[in-house]
């Protein structure tokens, strides 16, 4: 169906869509985040959900206290190495389709604690992150922007074909290995299946 016919039919009160279109429309407007925060970024996340910034405009005001009912994990704050296994475990308990927003400098890279001994250098070492937000902490507008970016990503998802997302591919993992506490560090320290850093070069 062409765009013109679609518009013409709509003028006469006939609405046409594709299955993919209505499927993505429904899901992107009801993304329910998991209600948990790790540090000061969580305060900004709370502010985003309140009346002034009003995350409810995007259908995401229902912060679920149980991972079984959540679609989106907003990793808001510093992920310490002691907390990292619990964060991965929460992610594993969420039903598909599920998304991750890494919010703030700590969640994306370790932030100011990167050289420390007890902070994970980015949650993307263990989880597949969809949207990264820099900032310390990011303003509510930045979280809204990340959320709209995620909505556009969901809107582009295909139901069939090779480009279909992870939750529609049977062979793709739904759960990710939980790191164990080691004598010096987490073991393993990263999940090579999701974390592939660019190679640093001298000339760069």
């Amino acid at each position, binding site marked *: 169906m062409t765009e013109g016919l679609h518009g013409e039919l709509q003028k006469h009160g006939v609405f046409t869509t594709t299955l993919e279109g209505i499927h993505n429309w429904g899901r992107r407007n009801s993304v329910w985040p998991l209600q948990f925060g790790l540090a000061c970024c969580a305060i900004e996340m709370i502010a985003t959900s309140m009346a002034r910034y009003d995350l409810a405009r995007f259908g995401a005001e229902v912060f679920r206290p149980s991972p079984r009912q959540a679609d989106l994990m907003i990793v808001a704050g510093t992920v310490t*190495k*002691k907390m990292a296994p619990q964060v991965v475990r929460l992610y594993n308990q969420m039903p598909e389709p599920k998304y991750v927003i890494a919010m703030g400098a700590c969640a994306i890279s370790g932030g100011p604690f990167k*050289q*420390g*001994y*007890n902070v994970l*250098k980015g949650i993307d070492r263990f989880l597949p992150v969809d949207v990264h937000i820099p900032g310390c902490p990011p303003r509510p507008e930045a979280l809204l922007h990340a959320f709209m970016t995620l909505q556009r990503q969901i809107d582009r998802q295909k139901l069939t074909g090779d480009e279909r997302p992870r939750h529609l591919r049977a062979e793709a993992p739904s759960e990710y290995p939980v790191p164990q*506490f*080691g*004598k*010096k*560090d987490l073991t393993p*320290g*990263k999940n090579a299946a999701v974390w592939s*850093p*660019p*190679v*640093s*070069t*001298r000339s*760069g």
Partner: protein
Amino acid sequence: MDESVTVLKRIEEALPEAAVSRVINPSPSGQHSLLVEPKDLLAVARFLRDDPQLGYDFLSNLTGVDWLDRTVKNKVKKIEIREGEETEVDVVEEQQIPGCLEVVFHLYSLSRKQGPLILRTRTVNRTDRVALPSLVSVWRSAEFQEREVYDLYGVVFEGHPDLRRLLMWDEFEDHPMRKDYIEPDDYEYEPTPHGRVLEKLDRS
């Protein structure tokens, strides 16, 4: 008069056998402290709390210091006989000071509105004789702070009701705040590589 002087005088009157000395702080702040031998620590702490003239009823802070083995060079004037004459010569003497772990207590008296009184105590060395008496029985607020010092410095507090790690996980086998702590090598990518990352690149 300086608080540490009056308190020291009071301790010497009441507990003549206790080994307490004054540590002078040469900086402009002039916060002098009292160094207590571990064997007398519990008796001195009880006395500081219970004595009506002192009444240090609040332990505000308890922290650790890691002193490495160090050599101090002292310039000493000596008289030598040179060419039949006595002359004054500056001789540099090296003094070896063995390392130890130190625990520092900041005490306040809420009833007298006095403080802080700084109390220090030192272990014998940094490796195997690191036990100190616990002060949980005197000030309850010492409980978590002693656990933290045990976790990060490795001071074993004898008589502590529940001496477990506070911040790091139980399987962790080191003390991160010690000066000879080596952090895990999980430092693989920097967007703008510099310093240690470049050195690592040169080696590989």
